[in-house]
């Protein structure tokens, strides 16, 4: 199959735009706003493209885009540098390794797999911060962030739907 027939994906469309959208959404939810006295949730928006990118196709650029998003989260949230990059890459590696098993499943099953990938990412973050700070993070706080991230699956699904068949070599 020639490269012309393969119709390769434009990296800007499937990597660049979701990356910028995630950064924008993260900035939006970092505002110190209370609604009925309650803080806004803090989901990890980059988790949606991380899951979708691993399913769409293996890529050389995607790991570095994930690292860039992770570094942005670390800088913007004031966390240890490299923490979110490493955690997101762990989740990406898990999904990428099970890619052939995941593709083609129903939406509900994919959602469950997405929650599993989020849990792996959070667990990685939990362990890395334990090693880095020598202190155990609060499990309830981790659970709340996992819950807030898990409801973002529709965005990941939209991204997968949009680009899954865009490159015929990876159908």
């Amino acid at each position, binding site marked *: 199959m020639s490269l012309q027939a393969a119709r390769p994906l434009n990296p800007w469309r499937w990597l660049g735009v979701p990356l910028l959208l995630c950064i924008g959404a993260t900035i939006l939810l970092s505002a110190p706003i209370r609604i009925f006295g309650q803080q806004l949730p803090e989901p990890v928006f980059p988790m949606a493209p991380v899951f979708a990118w691993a399913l769409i196709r293996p890529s050389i650029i995607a790991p570095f885009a994930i690292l860039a998003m992770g570094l942005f989260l670390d800088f913007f949230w004031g966390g240890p540098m*490299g923490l979110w990059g490493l955690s997101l890459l762990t989740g990406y590696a898990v999904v990428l390794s099970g890619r052939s098993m995941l593709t083609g499943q129903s939406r509900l099953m994919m959602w469950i797999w997405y929650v599993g990938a989020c849990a792996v990412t959070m667990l990685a973050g*939990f362990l890395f911060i334990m090693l880095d700070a020598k202190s155990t993070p609060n499990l309830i706080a*981790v659970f709340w962030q996992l819950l807030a991230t898990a409801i973002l699956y529709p965005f990941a699904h939209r991204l997968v739907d949009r680009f899954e068949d865009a490159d015929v070599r990876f159908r």
Partner: protein
Amino acid sequence: MAFREGPFGDLKVPLTWTAAVALIVAVVVAVALLLADRRETVQSQAYGVTRQAVDTVAAPVGGWVSAPGRWGGQFVGYVKSYFFVASENRRLKTELAQARQWQDTARKEQDLNDRFRVLLGLKVDPPIPMVSARVVTESRGPFANTRLADAGGDLKVVVGNPVMSENGLIGRVVGVSSHVSRVLLLTDVESKTPVMIDRTNARAILTGDGGPNPKLAYLRGREPVKAGDRIVTSGDGGVIPRGLPVGVAVQGLGGEWRVSLDSDRAPIDYVRILLFSDFSQVAASKSLSAGPMPPVTTEDPQGSIINTTPPAPKPGAPAAPATTATATPTPAVAKPPAAKPAAAGAAKPPLAKPPPAKPAPKPAAATPGDHR
């Protein structure tokens, strides 16, 4: 010229393997960055230029993003104050009556405190200057609890400065840019703050874990704390001054002691950054180096090192130079601490004569039993 039209156009590599190599390289970079990170230290250079640049850009963006929420909050506050003015007035009257009782008590205790200070010659802490700042962004996750405040190096904020809301301590500054400061909250997993239990003076380390109630670690003594005890900063280590309100002790689900933070009682929109430097440095550093140095010759050059018996002074000879040289700077060193009580005594002369008879204390209102 596009890549595929060049000499490498026919180069074919297995994409899965190259993607795996890219993944491994990215992981290695992330691990190296994580190992090199030192954001929690009080060293200003540990924060890094990149973080400063990100904060400088993020602060105005956060200000714009949060502006609609701020305006909405002000509007809701205005409407609420309009509709609930009568009930608020009743509440304020009650609070005012209680505050007047406390005012009488405070005046009496202040007077007593001043007299004790003068009698004991206590050196009081100097007042701490502070700057106000608005919070523009916040992170609330389990792995990072920080805020960006819009006051930085231009207002003399430095790394390590404690930060308070109107209710209590919220954290300390860990990074400073020209107009922005990054505040590490007490709830952050890297935050460790020396505190003490107000009732027993027992020391502990307030350790954040990403949850709303940080833990009291390294508690010592028999029953050093009980539920409802006030927790204040201990001042140990000199980074944070002693006595800042932190919160109230509560017992967690696992039986460990935690602190319900005072700062959680209201949203933290504005903060006060205390421009605090270690009091021991403030009080003594200049006075210690101000006196004249002792002369180089401090012993009799004729004397033997082996013969430890000092030679008998010749009659009529002046005193040994060592004695006069060391005696001279001694008062200079000892003087500054003693000067403060003397000055205070000039303003209020309680040492010269017994304290003047106070008017009869106000009966029941002036002495409430509970001094918490």
